[in-house]
């Protein structure tokens, strides 16, 4: 059953990606991207990372895509879009590298010795049982990875200031 579901959502994700890359209208491609995000969230659930799936839906699909939509609307790009695909040579080059990247990554990732550790799944299950789904993630996050966490908050602060400064109308 879960395999079937996985294939459905996997194909949805790839379709969304393709749609996003090929649509001329930015809004259409944005919506296709949102579709990909939802299918990914579903995949996360299948992979047992429920909290991550939730976060994915809230943060990505919700916040970032809305931001994109807002910017598209703000810049009034929705309608008189011209075909903005680069020259033929570039298309070929683009998809060639894409294919190559994909192939190489699959080779890297799927070689036997690539994944060393085993049994991660059981460990997660034990953690969830002990501190429910959110705690399983929160505990290591705030104990082992506290410093990176604080750094990301600083990063976000900087991003906010930068965004405000850049986008502010010159008075």
């Amino acid at each position, binding site marked *: 059953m879960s395999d079937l579901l996985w294939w459905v959502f*996997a194909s949805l994700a*790839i379709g969304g*990606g393709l749609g*996003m*890359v090929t649509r001329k209208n930015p809004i259409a491609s944005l919506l296709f991207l949102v579709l*990909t995000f939802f299918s990914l969230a579903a*995949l*996360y659930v*299948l*992979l*047992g*990372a429920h*909290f*991550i799936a939730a976060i*994915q839906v809230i*943060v*990505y699909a919700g916040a*970032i895509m809305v*931001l*994109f939509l807002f910017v598209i609307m*703000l*810049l009034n*790009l929705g309608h008189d*879009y011209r075909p*903005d*695909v*680069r020259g033929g040579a570039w*298309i070929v*080059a*683009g*998809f060639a*590298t*894409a294919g*190559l*990247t994909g192939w190489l*990554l*699959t080779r890297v*990732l*799927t070689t036997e010795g690539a*994944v*060393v*550790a085993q049994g*991660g*799944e059981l*460990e*997660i299950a034990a*953690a969830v049982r002990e501190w429910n789904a959110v705690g399983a*993630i929160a505990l*290591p*996050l705030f104990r082992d990875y506290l410093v990176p966490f604080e750094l*990301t908050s600083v*990063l*976000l602060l900087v*991003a*906010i200031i*930068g*965004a*405000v400064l*850049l*986008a502010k109308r010159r008075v």
Partner: protein
Amino acid sequence: MLTRSLVLSAILFGLGVAGVVVRRNAIILFMCIELMLNAVNLAFVALSRAAGIEGQIFVFFVMTVAAAEAAVGLAIIISIFRHAETVDMKNFNLLRW
């Protein structure tokens, strides 16, 4: 399950790359980058099933970076747009010497 997810993330990543290279519209470019980042997240989550919870924690960090990047990027695009009335990357060649 694990390997299939990794293959899927590789494919998605490839798609993102194609988009970045091919498309000239700045917004679409950003979306492709977001897609690439998500492909990475998928890989993380898939691997967390094998290598433990750390995978999922990293997803958090990736997300914050993605958000920050999107915000700043879009701000840049707006300021460029205000200046050059277009988002078509062909005209942004200030880098050229």
